[in-house]
């Protein structure tokens, strides 16, 4: 299990997609970050949501569907090791990647850009956990349904843009049509961004939105497990 984790970690660092997931949100942060006001509470939650969304919707399903497509899971099931171990290791590493991407954003925003960071850690961590769980669940469902890695990649990208728009990652929610902004708030990515925003403005994230993310995480994960095929 240790060796499997080490090898998978090496593979992840060789994956251009992983580097993009780190750099794209950072790029957005730096480009827009140079013109924000010191007390801004919009940009950083947006960048964090983009980072988690990229890992969950793009990298996770593509990796997993590719592993199935290439018969890697099947090959593993012919060894004493269960192929489920590989999925667990992957989930863990993708989570670490999402965490790294967010930590990078926070450090750069906090030091170079001098952006506002929330003082209360716990609500932030809880929001991050639930939001990541919800996005990973969507990613797992894509991995379960996509016939191959390329399809998973396509579905991920196709889902990413509408979800990002509804979540207010393309333009601030107050510039969006009311109805779309309201709907968007209850999408996995929208609930995540809004909850982060609540944390940034110093309040507690709404229990409703946290519940929405938890519900997505559980329901979609169950669906993914139901549809998942090993080969």
């Amino acid at each position, binding site marked *: 299990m240790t*060796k*499997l984790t080490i*090898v998978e970690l*090496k*593979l992840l660092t*060789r*994956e251009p997609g992983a580097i993009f997931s780190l750099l794209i949100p950072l790029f957005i942060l730096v480009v827009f970050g140079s013109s924000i006001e010191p007390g801004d509470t919009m940009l950083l939650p947006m960048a964090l949501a983009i980072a988690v969304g990229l890992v969950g919707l793009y990298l996770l399903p593509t990796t997993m569907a*590719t*592993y199935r497509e*290439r*018969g*890697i899971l*099947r*090959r593993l*099931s*012919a*060894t*004493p*090791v269960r192929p489920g171990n590989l999925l667990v290791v992957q989930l863990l590493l993708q989570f670490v990647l999402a965490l790294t991407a967010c930590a990078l954003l926070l450090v750069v925003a906090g030091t170079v850009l001098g952006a506002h960071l929330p003082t209360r850690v716990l609500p932030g961590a809880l929001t991050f956990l639930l939001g990541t769980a919800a996005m990973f669940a969507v990613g797992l469902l894509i991995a379960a349904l996509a016939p191959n890695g390329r399809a998973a990649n396509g579905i991920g990208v196709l889902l990413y843009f509408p979800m990002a728009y509804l979540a207010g990652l393309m333009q601030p929610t107050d510039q969006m049509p009311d109805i779309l902004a309201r709907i968007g708030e209850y999408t996995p990515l929208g609930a995540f961004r809004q909850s982060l925003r609540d944390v940034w403005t110093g309040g507690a994230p709404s229990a409703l939105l946290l519940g929405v993310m938890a519900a997505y995480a559980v329901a979609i994960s169950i669906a993914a497990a139901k549809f998942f095929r090993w080969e």
Partner: protein
Amino acid sequence: MAVIEVTDLRKRYADLTVLAGVSFSVEEGEIFGILGPNGAGKTTTVECVEGLRRPDGGSVSVLGLDPVKDGRRVREQIGVQLQQTQLPENIKVWEALDLYASFYANPRDWRGLLEEWGLADKRNARFGKLSGGQKQRLFIALALVGNPRVAFLDELTTGLDPQARRTTWELIKQVRASGVMTVVLVSHFMDEVEELCDRVAVFDRGKVVAIDTPAGLVDGIDADHQMRFTLMAGDLVELGGLPGVTGVTRTGNQVVVTGRGDFATAVTAQLARHHVLVSDLRIDKRTLDDAFVALTGHSFGSTH
């Protein structure tokens, strides 16, 4: 001792019967061939033996264990090369071997396998950069890294050029030379099983139609062989009375002699004795292809 015992194995997918009662046993130390056209049920059978599929009926025993119930203990002692599996593009050759070695309780030293399979200079190459032959050798090395008692090699030369196929055959002989390991070789190449296998189970439409040595299968064909030649000088002498000869037909200078057993030796001796000069002498040697036609009533390439 039988290492693998398969009895009346049955498997259906929806309304398609893939295995209709397959039985055979594999002895310790032999290279056992599973031969048949595509769709004959070869891979399904082997996957049931490996514990990757559950049969609908019948029983399988591998090293005295049930591959479904004692899956982990069985997989600890077998090595598998599967059809159509790949590794991640970016994994390095040594990493793959090192990783797979870590799955087993008592693995072989993968550095030795690198040498043995001619991959030492590809040690740090990524899987995606390997040639077809190198990938194939890596898969075989991965099948052996767990120090298995039985190795399953499924269609291992499919997609290789003739040169690479020959090389792979030598390597398989080497596998056997290296120990008493039992090898189960799945193939749809006649020449491959003829070259490598001690015994062969011939599969057709979900059934085993014969089990024998490759030579035994060919000898078992109940049909005449043919010998052809062209007369150059001298008159044709009487050949019909020679032992084993069943018929002689002559069309101009073309002569076809049919017969059984060692009739060809008798015919050539007779011709030499009477100073009959012939050219284009050909003896149609029976092959496993002919054996397959004889056993199933249809040619190897067609399934109907």
